[in-house]
């Protein structure tokens, strides 16, 4: 009858792990509204940090083309910075990147305004840039 403990122990272990995960995830959301580092160009326009990796297929086949299309259709002053997490792991750690692709929209002052975990379409990113202060063409 000691076997009756098995699901209880397992569910407790998984619940604990899920709780830790939730805390970590909420930690990334807490970045919204804060300046992690001054990678943007203050006084100018919003920017996008695009976290990617060599093994991330969807980054290369979907996210990068979406960003290129976006860049082609907006003001050239918008900076889209591609960051390979293997090359710049410290920056990924500071932005608490846990999944690829991740795109982070910063306002002109470098403040995080939006975080997208997973593929984000060009339309979504464009809306977020506008929200972050990008001038809208008349």
């Amino acid at each position, binding site marked *: *009858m*000691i*076997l*009756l*403990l*098995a*699901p209880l*122990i*397992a*569910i407790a*272990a*998984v619940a604990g*792990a*899920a709780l830790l*995960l939730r805390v970590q995830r909420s930690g990334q959301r807490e970045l919204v509204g804060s300046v992690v580092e001054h990678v943007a160009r203050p006084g100018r326009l919003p920017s996008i940090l695009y976290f990617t*990796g*060599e*093994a*991330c*297929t*969807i*980054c290369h*086949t*979907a996210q990068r*083309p*979406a960003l290129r*299309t976006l860049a082609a259709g907006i003001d050239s002053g918008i900076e889209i910075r591609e960051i390979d*997490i*293997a090359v710049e*792991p410290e920056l*990924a*750690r500071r932005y608490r*990147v*846990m*999944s*690829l692709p991740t795109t982070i929209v910063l306002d002109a002052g470098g403040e995080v305004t939006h975080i997208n975990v997973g*593929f984000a379409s060009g339309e979504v990113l464009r809306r977020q840039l506008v929200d972050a202060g990008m001038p809208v063409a008349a």
Partner: protein
Amino acid sequence: MATVPFDRSVLKVNQAILMTVIVAGYAVGLVWHPIAWVLPVLAVMMLAAVATPSCNLPRILYLRWLKPLRLVQPRVVQEDPAPHRFAQLVGGVFLAAASVFVVTGLLLVAWVLAWIVAALAFLNFAFNICVGCIMYAQLVRIGLLPLSHEPAR
């Protein structure tokens, strides 16, 4: 725009099989301990699925019967399949460890490990929370996993 079509229904079928077999096996195992030998069978199924698509039983089941009979609808998304394969590998390793404990007679430990796999499968099945995928991202980030191009399938 080029895309990577990835049918999540294969994963869902795999998770449903895991949950059903583990929970049913555990229930039977309360009165008939030899049923614990189903855990090595599941371990082989999971590890074989990671090794090669042609040995992926849930995928075969889905493609040959469940999808043609419209019992399960396709859920094709643009996604990198590598994290999901890693998650399957983690599940397979847990079940392989459970199998070792079955062999050594430590059934409580074996079923705890199996229930962890079932619980993680449930999280992914019901809420799309893939703990193995998050582990994968973390391991790539800190450089413990080699970076390699993963073909979509």
